């Protein structure tokens, strides 16, 4: 069984924001909401790196655990989806999310939040809508997974920094890259999202450590 993951190779990311733009366009993400974003660390100083971040589709997802109405769940592929019909916009998933993935449209007065919106791995929604239907598209965005396609952000990435797919496969690609070029600044977010107990995450973390040792 494939375990879907995202991996951003920060040594390749050029902060072009094509992933964020592709996501907004493909899923018709409303104004003010950002399912994917690019954050630049050490901006303008030596060692600057950019990381594209969205929902990492965590193992034992913290958002799903704290949801008071249990509207968030993991699919068989490890994709974290949610049912907007049940969501009450309490904001707890944002407090629990290590990656700032949940987004809320501001619906009315004060800080009242509407139904949570987040990256669906381009796999439609977790509601009762028929997969691939126009109703599902309007609520959750594209269902590329149904067509056998990967999330558009990763497909669109010009430097192939952002990888999507089976965790073991993309982990192996990253490991090969690190071995070939001789350095790697790590799989950002993997240990937090998938835990050190995760087999492919553990292997990738090990290759990073090996590189660090080799560089010393």
């Amino acid at each position: 069984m494939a375990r879907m993951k995202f991996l951003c190779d920060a040594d390749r990311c050029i902060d072009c924001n094509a992933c964020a733009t592709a996501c907004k366009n493909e899923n018709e993400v409303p104004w003010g909401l950002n399912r994917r974003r690019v954050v630049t660390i050490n901006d303008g100083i030596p060692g600057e790196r950019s990381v594209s971040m969205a929902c990492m589709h965590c193992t034992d997802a913290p958002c799903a655990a704290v949801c008071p109405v249990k509207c968030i769940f993991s699919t068989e592929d490890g994709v974290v989806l949610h049912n907007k019909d049940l969501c009450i916009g309490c904001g707890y998933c944002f407090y629990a999310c290590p990656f700032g993935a949940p987004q809320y449209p501001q619906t009315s007065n004060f800080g009242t939040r509407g139904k949570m919106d987040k990256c669906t791995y381009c796999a439609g929604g977790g509601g009762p809508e028929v997969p691939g239907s126009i109703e599902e598209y309007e609520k959750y965005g594209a269902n590329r997974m149904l067509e056998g396609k990967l999330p558009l952000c990763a497909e669109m990435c010009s430097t192939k920094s952002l990888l999507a797919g089976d965790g073991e496969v993309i982990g192996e690609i990253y490991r090969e890259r690190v071995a070939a070029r001789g350095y790697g600044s790590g799989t950002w977010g993997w240990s937090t999202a998938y835990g050190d107990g995760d087999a492919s995450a553990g292997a990738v973390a090990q290759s990073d450590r090996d590189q660090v040792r080799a560089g010393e």
Partner: protein
Amino acid sequence: MTMPLAYCRCLLAAIAVLIVVAAAMPAVAQQRNSDGSPDPTASVVNEKTLLQEFPRITGRIDIPDQRAAVLIQPAGRMFQRFHEVFLNWFGVIVLVGMLALLVIAYLVIGPIRMTAGRSGIRILRFTSFERFAHWLNATAFVILALTGLNITFGRFVLMPLIGPDNFGVVSQLAKYVHNFTSFAFVIGLTTIIAMWIRDNVPRRVDIEWIKEGGGFIKSKHPPAGRFNAGEKMVFWLALLAGIAVIASGFLLLFPFYVTNIFGMQIAQGIHAIIALLFIALILAHIYIGTVGMEGAFEAMGQGTVDLNWAKEHHSLWLEQAARAGRKPQAQPSATPAE
């Protein structure tokens, strides 16, 4: 031989300047591989190092939403553990524990009756405005408590009963009710504090009251003013808990207006913990004000209490009231005795 000396001075100065410049050179320039080629990753910090320095990795972001500049905050996992393990157990222990204590108190001590029986003469204890403020606060509190408990425990208690879809609708409604009722609670609590803070200032008589076992020993009725030490404790605890839940609640109601993600997590934690303790406190308050003590509910219900009740529980207040010219009235015959 002045020339060599000047020469030496010049040389020393040049060396000193060189040392200073070398020390001030950016570290990057020296970061090369062993074969002299530049190392592109030499100054790159990895995730682990960044997280060891600070619990959140924050960078620069191109979009206006600055919350999104936080790249990774593993504290979310901590929030998850707090919310799923600590909070659930804490809530169950505090609430079930308090209910168990009250049942034990009822079974062991039982309702505290008026030792001298009813006199049939009544004296005004709370004015209609005082009762209004109390019940405004009480109604708001019960609504807030139930809708608040639903957020934490509804999915274990209510959701299996009515199904996820209905529960979603109910919880959405409960959230809005919770948000808007908070304003009534603020008004009620503020009024109560303003009305009663003067009568709740701790006095020497309160120490005696506690030493004599307060309201828990049936045979003894230590003197007390308008509020005894037990009531004063409820007042001050409610004041502190009220301020804490109101402050943390408004942070949650206006998310990220004044605080960042860390502040929001702390606000949610404080709000939940204090609210649970507050509910436990009010459960005890409800017990002693209803089934726990004969004649106590009338004070807040009708506003008047039996003279014997006042003598037994608030002797000093009764004297004060008499001096102030508040006259006890015979009970109207229309009201049947209990």
